[in-house]
């Protein structure tokens, strides 16, 4: 079974992002970038499937500028067998990425596609679902457990009310939640081995996809600064303030 894993290059989670002075975007100048943590979990899951003898090949794919090859290499250092970069410097909005991934799915015919449930930059939480619709594949989102069983995959999902298990026919799409697994560390020898693994680069045209943006970013601004707290004398005053000042209860 072939497994395709999508990985995204995002601002490192340790970085305190700032809005650009003109409010046009997040300031990415000289900012440390890294693999999206949810994607790292996706890679780990795919590699575990391979180690368990369920998957035969793990392919890491990323959509973006040349620099995203670093995240593909990271995925290969973690255990992916080869990599694909779809090179585009157009902004990577969910629908565009989903269409490009659909192109890769058509080419590679994986039985399972694993993606992060969202990436920590845009927090869109859309790409996996859109890919599911475009490729007409079953989807199990927010996975906390993935068990492949013959030509089915059982995905335990974290939903508001608790856990839900869905049984999907393969080929299928899984998006990962935080508790699916704890990713390993890529060892240095594996980082060096990853340098020699195959990494193919496609343009959107190679995949027959036209990249057109449907989203316009209007404004990026930092969240309001937290104000200092106040002390209340008693519960009655607290309730009064919650009702009449904060207006969070009625």
């Amino acid at each position, binding site marked *: 079974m072939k497994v395709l894993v999508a990985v995204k290059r995002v601002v*490192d989670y*340790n970085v305190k992002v700032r809005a650009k002075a003109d409010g046009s975007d997040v300031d990415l100048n*000289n*900012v*440390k*970038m*890294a*693999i999206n943590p949810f994607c790292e979990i996706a890679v780990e899951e795919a590699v575990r499937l391979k180690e368990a003898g369920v998957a035969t090949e793990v392919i890491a794919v990323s959509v973006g500028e040349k620099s995203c*090859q*670093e995240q593909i*290499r*990271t995925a290969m*250092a973690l255990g992916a067998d080869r990599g694909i970069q779809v090179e585009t410097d157009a902004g990577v909005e969910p629908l565009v990425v989903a269409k490009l991934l659909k192109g890769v799915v058509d080419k590679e015919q994986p039985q399972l596609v694993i993606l992060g449930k969202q990436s920590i930059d845009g927090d869109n939480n859309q790409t996996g679902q859109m890919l599911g619709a475009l490729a007409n594949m079953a989807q199990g989102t927010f996975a906390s457990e993935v068990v492949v069983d013959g030509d089915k995959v059982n995905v335990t999902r974290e939903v508001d009310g608790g856990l839900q298990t869905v049984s999907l026919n393969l080929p299928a799409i899984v998006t990962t939640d935080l508790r699916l697994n704890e*990713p390993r*560390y*890529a*060892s*240095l*020898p*594996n*980082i*060096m081995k*990853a*340098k020699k693994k195959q990494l193919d680069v496609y343009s959107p045209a190679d995949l027959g996809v036209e990249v057109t943006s449907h989203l316009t970013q209007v404004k990026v601004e930092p969240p309001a600064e937290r104000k*200092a707290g106040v002390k209340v004398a008693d519960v009655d005053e607290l309730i009064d303030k919650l009702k009449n000042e904060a207006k969070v209860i009625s």
Partner: protein
Amino acid sequence: MSDPYFEEEHNILRDQIKRFVAREIVPYGEAWEEQGYVPRELLKKMGEMGLFGLMHEEKYGGSGMDIRAATVLAEELAQSTFGGVTVTALVHTNMASPHLALAGSATQKEKYLPGIVEGSKITAVCVTEPGAGSDVAGIRTRAVLDGNEWVINGSKIFITNGVYGDIYFVAAKTDPDAKGSRGISIFIVEKGTPGFTVGRSLKKHGWKSSDTAELFFENVRIPAENLLGEVNKGFYSIMKNFQHERIVLSAMAVSEAQKAIDITVENVKNRKAFDGTLWDKGVIREKMARAQSKVSIARNFVHYVSWLDTQGGDCIKEVSMLKAYACDIANEVMYDCMQFHGGMGFMSESPIERLYRDSRVLPVGGGATEVMYEEVAKRM
């Protein structure tokens, strides 16, 4: 963020170590400071990740990389704020085991390097003695060849990894009549060799999670083949490795200083006072901006010198400037950072208090600042 001195694999390595530090070191560091050493399980995990084989040959399990990989390791471990953990690893990777890697025979390397790379055998380097530190030529520990064995007598002090280490690279005089540095050789001594004892685990001002020992050698007999490299040439081997040792110490110093700045800026921005925050105060802004400038410039020099070392030429002058400057400014920066933490900075529970203490040894160990500047002056 692109840095012309590093390659893609260094960036990937950095990210992996970052995650390792956050998950495997930061939550436990304080307990290790209390107990006075780093547990072997952690060191084995680092070995599994390949961090102890960065620069060792591939046939012994290493990755055959250059000093830039060690610089990355030093910088990222230093971000943990536990200098003791950082130095435990760095002494093993870049101060002790290189003696074997650089001067050892194939047989010696086959015997010891795989365990060193795995982290199952931890190494220490034993040069300093009660009577000789900066002046290495003044050591008094003696080694005499007796038939098929060397017999070592003497003592060593301030030896990092000395209490819990397994393999010790010991400098001893083999020709007491030779002038100055000429009659020194280095020997491999294993823990448990009769006559070799760990005297005390030394209590320290900082680096509390690193074990530091006083060692005694009383008629310690080791096989002749435990001589490392050529007899009477040990001093040159020590000098050769000094450059790498100093680069990683500088990387550690600068990264700790950066961490101190980061937590201090965060702190003063949140600290409400005088109708605003401390960050509104011009004096504080200027001092922190000055600190950041020094640290950024020093960090660039760390990276440049790391790269320069890979170019094959002599870079003793640059390394000496770097070691002196980086370790000095780390201390200057720590002083201001601690100051701006107010009373909280004096409390043992704040990381700045530890960073401040830990930084104090940096201008002393691995070549004192004065000695480093003398090396620079000699080349001017």
